[in-house]
């Protein structure tokens, strides 16, 4: 199967119903996208498919063949991606860091659709991304900072 990941074509030999998450991590070797729940409940596996935030753990490979997949490793290719990562660094957001790839991917997707989100819009767009370390308030500030940058 042909996958377009971060602008590079990958030929992936895997079953069409394999979730994208495992193809990225175990076959392509891009481990920045994380496994947290496998059931679309935590957002750790968030990637972009044609620019849309997508939970890779419940996305079969067959549904993304030939579409544009962006992972945390490729998000800096866009100006918005770089801006969000810079805001994350400025706010020193991560603690353990495990959820942060998914948080950043969700934040970039939010800002792509709504460059100036309200606090309520940020909360609701980010509500699917769990953080056990409690970094939510700094995530919120980082999104505000990126929106104002």
């Amino acid at each position, binding site marked *: 199967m042909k996958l377009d990941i971060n602008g590079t074509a990958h030929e992936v030999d895997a079953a069409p119903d394999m979730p994208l998450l495992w193809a990225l991590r175990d076959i392509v070797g891009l481990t920045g996208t994380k496994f947290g729940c496998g059931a679309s409940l935590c957002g750790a596996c968030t990637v972009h498919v044609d620019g849309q935030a997508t939970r890779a753990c419940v996305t079969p490979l067959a549904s993304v063949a030939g579409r544009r997949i962006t992972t945390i490793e490729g998000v800096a290719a866009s100006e918005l991606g770089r801006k969000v990562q810079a805001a994350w660094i400025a706010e020193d957001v991560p603690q353990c860091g495990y959820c942060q790839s998914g948080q950043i991917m969700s934040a970039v997707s939010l800002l792509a659709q709504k460059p100036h989100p309200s606090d309520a819009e940020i909360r609701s767009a980010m509500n699917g991304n769990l*953080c056990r370390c409690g970094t939510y*308030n700094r995530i919120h500030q980082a999104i505000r900072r990126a929106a104002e940058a």
Partner: protein
Amino acid sequence: MNTLVASRRSFLKVGAAAAGGLVIGLALPVRTRAAATAAPADTAINAYVRVATDGRVTLLVPKSEMGQGIYTGFAQVLAEELEVPLATVVIEAAPVAAVYNASFAPIQFTGGSMSMSSSFELLRRAGAAARSMLVSAAAAELGVPASTLSAADGHVVHGASGRRLAYGALAVRAAALPAPADPVLKSPADWKLIGKAVPRLDTRAKVEGSAEFGLDVRLPGMVYAVVARAPTFGGSVAKLDASAAKAVPGVVAVREVPSGVAVLATNTWAATRGRAALRIDWTPGAGAGVSTTRLAAEFAARAREPGTVVVERGDVGQAGPGRALEADFATPYLAHAPMEPLNCAVAFADGRCDVYTGTQFQTVDRAAAAAVAGLAPEQVHVHTTLLGGGFGRRANPSSDFVREAVAVAKGHPTPVMTVWTREDDLQGGYYRPLSHDRLTATLGTDGHPATWTHTIVSQSIVAGTPFEKMMIDPKTGLDATQHEGASDLPYAIPSVRVAGHTAKVPVPVLWWRSVGHTHTAFAVESFIDECATTARQDPVAYRTALLGAEPRHLAVLKLAAEKAGWGTPLPHGRARGVAVHASFGSVVAEVAEVSLVDGRPKVHRVVAAIHCGLAVNPGQVAYQVESAICFGLSAALYGEITLEDGRVQQSNFGDYAPLRHEEMPAVEVHIVPSSAAPTGVGEPGTPVIAPAVANALAALTGVRARRLPLAHTAFTAPPA
């Protein structure tokens, strides 16, 4: 070790072991494993400091980074004394070696909020010793007395001539010198890094997705395994039919291990599919009949029996003239549920076994791995990766996930990573123990408690583990974690009795961020609040009057109350609650502001104050307290693992719900300024939030929660 810097031979050994180990690139520029092998020769100055010929300084950190910022904190202290700019150092996880054992126990581990408090002086001395050796090397090089030289920015400087020698050029010579027995430490007045809120060193790697957690380890030829474990604790395989599993594409082997049946495959997904195709009849184990509903009732009944006394002073039979109060508090089993599910990669090669995992328990896990592998501990190499959260789950005296992963890989021709799914992680046991706390008090004429009794029923965490001897008091038979936070009651009450019962339940339990304090703080701080309101006194003033002998408690209570605007009016439908509790050497007070939304508690704002001695990195101290509040609030509002017929009823984040972004309150953390020795930071914020919120809800509705999570209590909003 008593000499901070052990013999040079052991340093060189450590250095060599580390160089061959897993190097985690964290600082800028990110150092990858490939880059590490290509780097110019590193010279170990001591167990914590290596200097390369190009001047690159590597600091080895023997504590596990699980979000608490310890890599940054340790680097701050070492770099301060070593006189190197923090931005240029590389952090590396130390290998397992006796030189890295805790100052108070013969093991290398991370826990008890003790990393900084137990290492601060040692790190200062290690940094200063390395600096002094580099200065001595420069003195020999330049033929000038060492007293005419100073160190700054990774260089030794001869002030008189202006000559500067880079550390990189001095390292080999310095390493050959004897370590000074008593290196001169910098004066706190000259600190540039200690006490400063410097940014974390691991942020960029975590923002770019390049930080390597246990689950990200990739070894040549590695396959992935998931294990089918018995549905009830203590169960075992009676009959196995693996034919369908073996037919799943990608599955390479099915292996029986002591904990169940492992399915090995070329990717994690194939392994889980293979596992789903296993047909297994299980023999029910000791845990087959466990019901938490029944357990809670049994514990409640037992709490009415006297129990083994831990503290007895005055005469609790001599009731005060005022009101008598009694209350029972029930707290459930809790899973740690770190965002990164458990995992452990294992590779065997002739005469050695390499274990790659995010562990908090290096020495214990190495011994367990060696026992399973049939090797000596020195033949097992534990490589500590970053941890995607720990909270105590990765510090298991039983080494469950390491032991199992070694069994899965043993005899398999390639490296194997054993992966736990979220369901495995939540249902695999090692929970915060279910507990029952029963309290009684009688009040004196001043409204203050004249008598106080506290009876606890819970499981012991360490019974049956190698820690039993160390942590169970032979006089009482109780494990200190059962009554911590109760037996050290800070309130001046004339007659006190604290007693405990140990229940034996076939459900594995473990320390969970702040351990015993999670139930005792809820019980004590809810009950003292109830005493205050029964006496019609202000909860802050009431506590203050009873805390005369506890300056840290008084300081945080005052600071949190002031910053929260305690006593100032709130909009209708909102109320404040307060709690204060000491744990891990520190004291935290929290004021929570709550309302009810559709009958459910909503926490709007939490103002916290912490006294933790010297705050080595005030930014990270505050962030840890905020983290602890989120973690404790998840548990207070929703957290609960229940069992019926021996089966855990929760399976994923749908029914074991951590706090989400929308529910996170605004948090303010204030630090009491102090130059006293550092005390714990990672845990002490956790146990305070449940009683602070429960007390706020009582202030709002008059209803006192007797059980966690709070979702079990019906609160009704006050009439408009």
